[in-house]
């Protein structure tokens, strides 16, 4: 088994991530003025809890910084520090520093100490600014062993005299004299005498009162601190007198009183007192029976208050593997159900028969189960959105622009695997929007726009896909420059006729960078073409629209899940294949006069003024030696990575359906040109085409096709 501490450590870091997100959300709510009291508490708790956990693992840098942060937050919570925009700005930056510290602790790397130190200095400043009624200065705990009896520390093996008179509070807090005596005995030999002289008549006795005093002679060479330690929990709820062994000659009457001014009267241990009773018997157990009706009303009120909160937190944490296994099984179920339906159909059972009807019910149920299982994996995009404010702050600082991030639709749900992979493209789009989209602050003021630029991040569901939009209110795409650049880089012909939209979308082509100089921010050596590729790998699409002077909008659309896929069922030389629907642009019937041979193997299809290479699926997958006659075939215009297109030729199209994706690598091995597999209703395996590979193949066969690609895009 793995090291339990390593697992706890991992849990701690996971929790840190959640708390950092909560911290950021809370701080932003405070900034927007939508915070409630509970928000401030939650923010405080997040930092506090990180500090606590970091303590377990001795992550000192983290503990120290969290402590400083927490101190300031506590002041806000108690109202001694006003949450002004300036203060919140410090908090937000502190949250970033905290996140870095967590990250550094997790990866065991070093952090920018200077940054942390600057942050601490800022905290010192705001802490000092509000230094008025500092709430209860942390006076050190009644330090055991310091002061009075220091001299006694050297003491040898002789008897300490301890007089111990509990007050009722001691018992009320569930402390127990017997246990304290037991603990004392661990220090050495004890001689206990009970003074019960204050015990009233039974009729007068309050069962929860305190009437007893113990006189203890402890023979031990321990120091006073050790003795005080035994009484640590009860010190304030009793009268305690500790007299060191004789030679030191401390005056009896060194009185320690409880904090409510209880007067202590020294009681000399009577010589002929009865021996101490069994300690257990010393404290009468509260004999009162709880009346049935005594269900605590206050608790109920609290419970009722918290009910709404409870509804929110009614979640369970499940290992992802289990969910995946279930999804897999439900996939099998769907396939099985389809097979059963087909068998029933083949058996010639009438559609109106009971069997067929029951089967239909089953089909509905299966679909519903499938949807529900998929919903388990679905998560709101919030977790990704929450990372963006920090990004915006950083990029804004780097570019010296003022940026406000507006987010909408954080609750939009999408499959977990998709969520994990949208963060990168989204980051890139936002960087781009701030760096290239927004004008400089001076320029904005000059043209009469608000100095603060706005970047909007929206998530929504649209026809079974999730759509993410990043828009800015900047200058829009400079089409003249984009076009000029494209011609310069040989991406398009100098005389190419392009619509505005087409020019805008040129920025997604490989080797194209809109920035005159590659800036550190959006540049990072990655162009929008890479973003487009990673999006395409997820079965998604990305596009941009732009209005001069008003801003641009990136639109990213992705499938909701990667476990099922909408596919076109086609056949090629008797084999059933699935082509992902997201890759298909259109289907067409090629005419003989549009087909031009490039060489003996490659044909291109004239399509709206451009030429697209044609791929004979059956031939390229080696199903058949010969070539299909283009006029006899059905052609599918598909788009692969980076918007490159090809026409795939198949025998026939059998319609669309949702298929459960089964990995070929996991079950067999990787096959070039095939992305995955699925099981059809008749129980046979159908392969899912890897469109990108097909297109790439066709392109390399057809020679360099950059020009083709763009002219075709027209």
């Amino acid at each position: 088994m793995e090291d339990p501490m390593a697992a706890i450590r991992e849990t701690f870091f996971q929790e840190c991530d959640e708390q950092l997100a909560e911290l950021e959300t809370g701080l932003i709510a405070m900034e927007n003025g939508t915070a409630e009291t509970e928000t401030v508490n939650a923010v405080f708790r997040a930092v506090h809890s990180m500090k606590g956990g970091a303590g377990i693992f001795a992550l000192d840098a983290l503990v120290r910084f969290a402590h400083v942060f927490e101190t300031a937050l506590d002041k806000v919570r108690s109202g001694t520090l006003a949450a002004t925009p300036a203060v919140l700005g410090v908090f937000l930056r502190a949250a970033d520093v905290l996140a870095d510290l967590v990250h550094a602790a997790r990866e065991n790397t070093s952090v920018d100490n200077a940054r942390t130190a600057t942050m601490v200095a800022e905290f010192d400043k705001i802490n000092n600014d509000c230094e008025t009624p500092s709430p209860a200065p942390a006076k050190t705990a009644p330090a055991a062993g310091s002061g009075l009896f220091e001299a006694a520390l050297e003491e040898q093996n002789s008897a300490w005299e301890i007089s111990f008179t509990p007050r009722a509070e001691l018992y009320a807090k569930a402390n127990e004299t017997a246990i304290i005596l037991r603990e004392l005995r661990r220090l050495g030999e004890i001689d206990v005498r009970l003074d019960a002289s204050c015990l009233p008549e039974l009729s007068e006795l309050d069962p929860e009162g305190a009437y007893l005093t113990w006189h203890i002679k402890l023979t031990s060479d321990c120091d006073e601190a050790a003795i005080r330690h035994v009484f640590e929990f009860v010190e304030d709820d009793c009268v305690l007198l500790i007299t060191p062994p004789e030679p030191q000659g401390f005056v009896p009457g060194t009185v320690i009183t409880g904090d409510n001014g209880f007067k202590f009267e020294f009681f000399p241990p009577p010589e002929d007192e009865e021996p101490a009773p069994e300690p257990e018997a010393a404290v009468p157990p509260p004999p009162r029976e709880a009346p049935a009706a005594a269900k605590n009303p206050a608790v109920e009120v609290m419970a009722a208050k918290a009910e709404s909160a409870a509804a929110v937190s009614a979640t369970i944490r499940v290992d992802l593997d289990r969910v995946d296994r279930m999804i897999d099984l439900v996939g099998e179920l769907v396939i099985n159900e389809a097979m059963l339906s087909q068998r029933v159909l083949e058996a010639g059972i009438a559609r109106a028969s009971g069997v067929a009807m029951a089967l239909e019910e089953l089909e509905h149920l299966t679909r519903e189960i499938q949807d529900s299982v998929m919903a388990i994996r679905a998560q709101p995009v919030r977790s990704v959105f929450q990372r963006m404010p920090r990004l915006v702050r950083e990029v804004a600082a780097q570019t010296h622009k003022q940026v406000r991030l507006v987010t909408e639709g954080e609750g939009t749900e999408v499959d977990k695997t998709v969520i994990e992979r949208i963060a990168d493209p989204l980051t890139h789009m936002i960087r781009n929007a701030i760096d290239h989209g927004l004008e400089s602050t001076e320029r904005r003021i000059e043209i009469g726009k608000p100095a603060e630029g706005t970047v909007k991040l929206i998530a929504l569901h649209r026809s079974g896909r999730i759509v993410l939009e990043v828009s800015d209110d900047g200058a829009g795409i400079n089409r003249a420059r984009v076009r000029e650049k494209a011609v310069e880089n040989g991406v398009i012909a100098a005389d190419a006729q392009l619509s505005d939209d087409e020019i805008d979308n040129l920025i997604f082509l490989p080797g194209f960078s809109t920035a005159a100089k590659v800036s550190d921010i959006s540049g990072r050596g990655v162009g929008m073409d890479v973003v487009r590729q990673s999006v395409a790998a997820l079965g998604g699409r990305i596009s941009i629209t732009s209005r001069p002077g008003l801003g641009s909008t990136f639109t990213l659309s992705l499938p909701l899940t990667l476990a099922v896929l909408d596919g076109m069922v086609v056949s090629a030389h008797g084999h059933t294949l699935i082509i992902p629907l997201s890759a298909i642009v259109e289907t067409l019937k090629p005419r003989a006069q549009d087909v031009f041979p490039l060489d003996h193997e490659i044909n291109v299809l004239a399509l709206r003024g451009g030429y697209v290479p044609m791929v004979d699926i059956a031939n390229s997958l080696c199903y058949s030696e010969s070539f299909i006659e283009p006029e006899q075939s059905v052609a599918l215009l598909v788009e692969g990575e980076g918007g490159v297109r090809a026409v795939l030729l198949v025998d026939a199209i059998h319609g669309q359906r949702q298929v459960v994706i089964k990995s070929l690598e996991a079950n067999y091995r990787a096959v070039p040109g095939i992305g995955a597999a699925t099981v059809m209703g008749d129980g046979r395996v159908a392969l899912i085409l890897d469109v990108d590979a097909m297109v790439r193949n066709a392109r390399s066969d057809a020679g360099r096709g950059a020009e083709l690609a763009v002219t075709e895009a027209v």
Partner: protein
Amino acid sequence: MSTTVLTVDDSRAMRDMLRHSLAAAGFRVIQAEDGLHGLEMLESERPDVIVTDINMPRMDGFGFIEAVRRDDQRKAVPVLVLTTEVDVEKKNRARAAGATGWIVKPFDPVKLIEAIRRVSA
């Protein structure tokens, strides 16, 4: 029968840590995620000792301790508070609410076990 300890803490890491340390010391460990959850667990469980955090959502440690102390069936259960060295004020408030004792965070398992032993019979 082994001593049962109820831990109340909203941090998963802290819960895991408590469970790990206490189980290793032979205690039976039951866990709640906040004060209200703790009270719910007390309806069906009778722990010998309770260890609770202070800062928690829904119901904090103070509220929890007060509720335990008001419950005639449960009020004799020792409650230890997880606190930090600097939180003297918090410690005092916890005591006022009826806490039996406290454990200073970050605790090491030895101190934790020792503190529990110090309040349990």
